[in-house]
């Protein structure tokens, strides 16, 4: 895949809609299914992924000419692991309040597919600026997906939103369990596909 031709804003919107990591690229479904139980969880994990994605993309884009092609994947893994450790240590030392909230999530990010994929598909062939904005787009797309799922699951499963009682009762605890996560992700994918088809149809008609 040659270097991208999109502008920076296009890259961000791309990560949010066209190539949304959870609903279109179907990557990192583990956290999408397992951790999007509440809006707060989704938000915190989304922020953590945003930081790791942006830092890793920029780093790989900086050193892309020096990576031996046969050891790309170990290099990506090393970079991601280094950044996750650095972020974890810095949070624990200088932002204890944020660390208390996000601490457990940050360590999980090492295993996410979206970050490695984005490094392989985008960062190793593009400039630092483009990689930065692509990382931002992917991070926001992931956060958007997690918050959307989290909102549905929290309101329908526990009757709260961001911890505040909204419904006053628990509609269906089923929504908090992982099985519901699968169903909801599939449902949202269908919604995304439907919206894209409708949009394309209207665009064709507009032509």
């Amino acid at each position, binding site marked *: 895949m040659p270097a991208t031709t999109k502008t920076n804003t296009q890259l961000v919107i791309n990560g949010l809609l066209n190539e949304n990591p959870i609903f279109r690229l179907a990557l990192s479904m583990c956290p999408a299914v*397992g*951790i999007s*139980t*509440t809006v707060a*969880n989704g938000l915190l994990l989304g922020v953590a992924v945003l930081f790791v994605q942006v830092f890793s993309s920029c780093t790989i884009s900086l050193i892309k000419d020096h*990576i*031996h092609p*046969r*050891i790309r994947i*170990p*290099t990506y893994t*090393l*970079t991601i*692991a*280094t950044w996750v*450790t*650095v972020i974890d*240590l*810095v949070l*624990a*030392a*200088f932002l*204890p309040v944020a*660390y208390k909230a996000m601490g*457990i*999530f940050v360590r999980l990010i090492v295993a996410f597919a979206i970050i490695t994929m984005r490094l392989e598909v985008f960062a190793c062939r593009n400039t630092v600026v483009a990689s930065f904005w692509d990382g931002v787009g992917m991070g926001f797309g992931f956060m958007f997906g997690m918050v959307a799922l989290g909102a549905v699951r929290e309101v329908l499963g526990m009757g709260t939103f961001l911890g505040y009682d909204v419904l006053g009762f628990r509609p269906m*605890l089923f929504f*908090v*369990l992982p099985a519901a996560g699968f169903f909801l992700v599939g449902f949202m994918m269908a919604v995304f596909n439907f919206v894209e088809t409708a949009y394309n149809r209207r665009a064709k008609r507009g032509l």
Partner: protein
Amino acid sequence: MREILKITIALTVSCLLAGLVIGTTFIFTAKAKQHNEHLNVQQTMFGLLGYSKQRPAPPELRLYSVYRYIVEENDAMSMGYMVPVQKGSVEGYAFIVLDLKGRFLESYDLGLTAEEALSAEDRKKALAPVLKDSAEISFADAMIIACMEEERTAYLLPGEFPGFKTFIKAMVALDPHFQILGLEVIEHEEDPGLGGEITQDYFKNQFVGKSFEKLKKLTVIKEPLPEDYKLYLETMGNTEEGGLSAREVERIQKHYQDKDIYALTGATISSAAVTSGVVGMAKKFAYRVQILDQAVEKGDVPVLF
């Protein structure tokens, strides 16, 4: 062949670079991280005793730390306790050795202050001149005794036990009759949203007020948490906050005093792990503290608690 060499060198260099970055960050952040953790533990301890920013602890409250060690000497095992003692007009530490049945063997004076005792390194250094060469010492656990004017008000036990995922670090507060005053989960790796709910008030506060007798047989019941009990647990009898009236609080307390712990929905194993962990910690502690008290009396050690 050259390719393999290049790949190996590249991989090694990358790993070394990554290690360098991580190591440098660690050096810069280690002190601050330890400081934060210490503050966290302090806050947890005071919170368990019922004090907060709005209700600061009175100056008469003293917290004494006792450290338990296991001493191995030529295949003979004994227990060692590092206890705070009165040395003339200052407070210091002594090391008492008991045999496995709890009989007092001997006591040594240690040149250690309370602040130094907080770090494992300093404790080890203070123990080194006291032991014979063949003895091997390993740290077991610590306990904190809260005293107010020469009378024990509470015991604080930090501890670690297996959870559903890996380990759960918790702190249990017991009153002098081993009734549970409170429970705080300090660190865990349970599933967020399911097992992670063990940090919520409506689970932790179920342990408060359980007597020692009930504790010994405490298990977990798989029934949904009743609404009135949940409201009580979340306000903890705080009647001003538009929750329950004083009479209702009393009724709920009496009704649920002797019930088992209601498990978290979707996290039975985590709930059972916390319950059995807390029960184990409390039982072992009650046994050990009685032995320690007997030994301290026999050995006539001037302990501060």
